[in-house]
């Protein structure tokens, strides 16, 4: 069934969009990531112009994450205070990221730069996650007592402006969460994603938050950052396609609930290993595209 997208100015198969939405939504609920890092490349792959793909994926991420956020919030897995702190940094970061994006566009290298960003960031994050979770799984299998310290003190704990995040059982400086929010805000504006896949490991490994709280809290940040990106894109670029968003969401909201239900049955290490493998495979796919000889030596794009 073909449907016409008014902003992308093209018609696509509605069932294909529903299917993509369902798959990405399912992962969103399972791992607590918005799924933008999968959605944006998938949409570009089926021929949606990259500006529309980025903007509409951000809008879909907002909707899909809200149903995930509600599901997590019901289970009491959201640290609102931490979420707001991260978001404050994210607002500033995404504002700067939009400027960088505009600069790349002027150089005519947006597609390559975005792909390179994906390959590098997803590659690093995915490799770290897989390594960490495999180590944890092996340690558990060997039966050795996981001698984890309750608090590992690093230089991060020497920073001023300490704040108590009761739900995360942390008493730390606000500077690390603000900086993480800021850095991910920059990357999410350039890559057109909510940033959950980077936020989840950052919260676990840098801030030391408990895994159960991490997923709900990252969804909180993703919802607000993607709302900000949607607004900026609609207002300044005019590239949000609401018909595309709604089709993706229709599949996505169903998928997210199934994913969230299944996520509660998985152990933390297994969830992280699976997410790590998924992130790595997307990175490999994009790297392959960059290295492979293109099927056409020339590209055609409208002058904007």
């Amino acid at each position, binding site marked *: 069934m*073909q*449907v*016409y997208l*008014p*902003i992308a*100015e*093209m*018609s696509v198969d509605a069932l294909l969009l529903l299917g993509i939405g369902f798959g990405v939504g399912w992962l969103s609920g399972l791992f607590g990531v918005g799924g933008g890092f999968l959605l944006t490349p998938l949409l570009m792959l089926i021929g949606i112009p990259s500006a529309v793909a980025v903007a509409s994926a951000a*809008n*879909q991420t*907002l*909707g*899909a*994450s*809200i*149903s995930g956020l*509600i*599901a997590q919030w019901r289970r009491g897995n959201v640290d609102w205070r931490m979420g707001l702190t991260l978001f404050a940094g994210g607002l500033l970061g995404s504002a700067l990221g939009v400027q960088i994006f505009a600069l790349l566009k002027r150089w*005519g*290298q947006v*597609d*390559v730069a975005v792909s*390179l960003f994906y390959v590098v960031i997803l590659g690093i994050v995915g490799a770290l996650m897989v390594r960490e979770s495999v180590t944890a799984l092996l340690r558990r299998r060997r039966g050795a007592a996981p001698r984890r310290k309750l608090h590992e003190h690093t230089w991060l704990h020497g920073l001023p402006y300490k704040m108590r995040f009761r739900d995360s059982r942390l008493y730390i400086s606000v500077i690390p969460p603000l900086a993480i929010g800021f850095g991910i805000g920059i990357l999410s504006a350039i890559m057109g994603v909510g940033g959950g896949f980077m936020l989840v490991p950052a919260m676990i490994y840098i801030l030391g938050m408990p895994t159960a709280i991490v997923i709900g809290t990252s969804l909180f940040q993703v919802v607000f950052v993607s*709302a900000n990106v*949607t*607004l*900026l*894109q*609609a*207002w*300044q670029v*005019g590239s*949000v396609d*609401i*018909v595309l*968003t*709604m089709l993706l*969401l*229709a599949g*996505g*909201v*169903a998928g*997210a*609930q*199934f994913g*969230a*239900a299944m996520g509660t049955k998985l152990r933390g290490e297994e969830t992280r290993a699976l997410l790590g493998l998924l992130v790595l495979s997307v990175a490999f796919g994009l790297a392959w595209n*960059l*290295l*492979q*000889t*293109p099927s*056409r*030596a*020339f*590209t*055609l*794009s*409208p*002058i904007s």
Partner: protein
Amino acid sequence: MKALAHMMLVLGSLFGGGMAWASPITAELSTDRVEISTGFTGASVLVFGATQNPLGGDPPEDLIVVATGPTQGVVVRRKINVLGIWLNGPSTRFPEVPGFYALTATRRVWEILPEDERRQYRLGFDNLRLRSEGNRNPAFRAALLELKQADARWQEYAAPVSRAGERLFSARIAFPATVQTGDYQIEVLLARENRVIARQELSLRVERVGTAADIASLARGQPLLYGVLCIVLAALAGWLGSVLFRRN
């Protein structure tokens, strides 16, 4: 059905006029509006009409139909390999190219008309005026032609000019789903002995209608409001989904 009735009416009036031909050629379109609604998957428009003299008589007369869409600016970039990675390299800008171009005729145009005539009426890809800026390599122009044809926005002899009897003719112009909105010109030329002896210009409007049009005009006219609406709609859909699909 409406188009067919319209066609019969036009043809009826052509023959009702008997021998009083005002022009050696009379042509009409099956519609003067292509509407892009939410279910749009492309459209086909019929150009039809009649000639005063029998087509292919002696000396032979030929018909040429050219459809041209609104002009647009495009950039053609060549991919280059830097350290194993494919980047966008040198580029050429074509500030004014037809967004849509379709040519069809009773024979190949180079068999019908000499080069200067073909150039004047822009018949065939070779005779399109494609002003370029930047890299002068002719490969960029060739790439433009190839890419435009690949998505059916530029067509040469995609559908034939078909004849019925001696004087009636028709040709189909197929617009792809990615067609631009705007005003389109359809020119019907009658050629004899290496020159154009008559021409008729028809026009066609491609526009969005219904929900698609409302969304596009809101997004353009009130982008901030549209952005807020997108956020609210996505949030509502997400919330509704969590209620409908709750799994416990």
